[in-house]
């Protein structure tokens, strides 16, 4: 009995140690980004790395925002990212809720087929259709514009799936009662369905915002002018420039990460539920 207890204490300590060390290793690169963004380059590549910045060296941030050419294009690119990610999230939420509601609560002929067709689009990876999409965007003359950046992402099948699953359990009595009271179908959607889907909407909005904030490939194809670039493109360009030093690069990366990390800390519940929701995607 005694040996078992001793053994389990050792195992217990080892598990704690493993979890804590893993947490440190995983967080270290993020801490590295923030601390390096506050150091002059000669400190960043010092061996060993001095984890604590001596004095808060803000020149990196100035350089990241000003750009090597002094054009101050980064704030504009940040704004673009907010506009695109915001617009895509808004439209994804509204249209997914609308379609999900239609699929959950309105029996019509061919409904299963429609649902199947929508789910089938999840199998088409963006990487496989980016070239034809690029040609579509060119022929519509929407390349290098907000419309071009936003349009291909306005709805996604996963969002529809999520909203449908959420709304399928919504009580029919409430909808019927509203109909008897004389509400139109649109006003039922707007006044009853949307406000009552808040948790699903928040999850979907956050997932969508994050993935757009991260989007590199599509803007890389269609944003030609500096004014229409988004954050990932700026970071790629800035990192390649000869005059960019290590600290400035980390400052640009830190600026890109602060909004999304704040969102994460404030609304971690929805990030986590978003991740676990993907696992319920069974078709």
């Amino acid at each position, binding site marked *: 009995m005694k040996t078992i207890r001793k053994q389990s204490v050792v195992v217990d300590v080892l598990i704690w140690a493993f*979890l804590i060390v*893993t*947490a440190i290793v*995983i*967080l270290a*690169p*993020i801490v*590295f*980004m923030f601390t390096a963004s506050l150091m002059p380059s000669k400190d960043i*590549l010092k*061996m060993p790395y001095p984890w604590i910045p001596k004095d808060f060296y803000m020149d990196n941030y100035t350089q990241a925002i000003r750009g090597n050419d002094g054009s101050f294009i980064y704030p504009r690119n940040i704004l673009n990212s907010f506009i695109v990610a915001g617009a895509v999230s808004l439209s994804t939420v509204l*249209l*997914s809720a*609308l*379609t999900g509601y*239609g*699929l959950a609560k*309105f*029996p*019509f002929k061919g*409904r299963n087929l429609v649902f199947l*067709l*929508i789910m089938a*689009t999840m*199998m*088409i*990876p963006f*990487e496989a259709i980016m*070239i*034809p*999409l690029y040609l*579509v965007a060119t022929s519509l003359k929407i390349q290098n514009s907000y419309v071009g950046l936003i349009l*291909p992402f*306005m*709805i996604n099948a996963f969002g*529809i799936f999520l909203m449908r699953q959420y709304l399928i359990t919504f009580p029919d009595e409430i909808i019927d009662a509203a109909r008897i009271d004389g509400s139109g*179908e649109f006003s039922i959607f707007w006044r009853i369905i949307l406000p009552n889907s808040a948790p699903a909407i928040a999850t979907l909005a956050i997932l969508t915002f*994050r993935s757009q904030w*991260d989007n*590199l490939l599509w803007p890389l*194809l269609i944003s030609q002018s500096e004014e229409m670039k988004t954050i*990932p493109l700026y*970071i*790629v360009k800035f*990192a*390649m420039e000869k005059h960019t030093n290590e600290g400035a690069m*980390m400052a*640009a*990366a830190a600026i*890109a*990460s602060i909004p*999304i*990390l704040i969102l*994460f800390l404030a609304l971690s519940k929805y*990030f*986590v539920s978003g991740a*676990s929701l993907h*696992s319920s995607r*069974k*078709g």
Partner: protein
Amino acid sequence: MRRIFNMGIEHKKARWGWFFVIPSLAFFAVFSFYPIMNAFYTSLFRKRLLDLRPPKFIGFANYEYLLKSPDFWNSVKATFIFTLGTFIPIVVFSLLLAVFIMSRRRFHKFFQMAYYSPAVLSSVVAAAIWLLIFDPRGLANTTMNTLLGTVGKDYKWLATSGMVRLSTILVYFWKYIGYFTIIFITGLASIPQSLHEAARIDGANGWKDFWHITLPLLKPTTVLVSIMSMLQCLKTFSTQYLFTQSGAPTEPINVITLNIYNTAIRDHNIGRASAMSIILFGIMLFFTWLQFRVSKSGGEVDY
């Protein structure tokens, strides 16, 4: 009379149903179904960007070319090395971390958030951070030298082909480990506590409980995580793009997506890039089909 009235309502409902669904269908027609069909169509042509000559129909010649091209096979190889090298460690470690987290009574939320945080960052940011860590004077060398007791050795993270492959794998592993840990935690939480208690009463220790109770019941989640992470890896682009842009050798990490991008945008060869896209689509379709099949057959577990 009542029947007619009911039919009226059903009719009306069906109309509204269509009305709510039509915008999405129209959207997917233009932005999903048309492009994938177009990609297939274009892959049968010799078509170049900014070319004034009309595209020439060449049947499956693009595919034939690719199947004979060492460059394309190199991309297939790079993609599969990356995918296998990333998703297997991800599945093993995320399962391990999830089990360890759930075996603790406290700090579940802290560990989940800490492990998940890299997944929140943009992939470009992740690649930029690791680019500095892999610098000859960076953290990666310092750490390796301390761990392995070497002095001032440069492990050439971004220079030799083996190391640059390992570097991209490390970035991806770091970024997605927490995401899949959370999925495993969701799976673990759905196993009824009573089963573990019953096993304990029957004299099972922690290891036996894990091996005979947790692991078999977690099979559907494991399959799901495997296929999701595999699909995710097959689509990798940002890390490889930023690494090659900043001077890392292209060949070992020239994954299919990067090759599609370069063939289309740099070489203007739209036909060939489309053929590559269709092959990538075929590979991913196969794994998605596998996911549906497996989750249908083994998806439901009786406790």
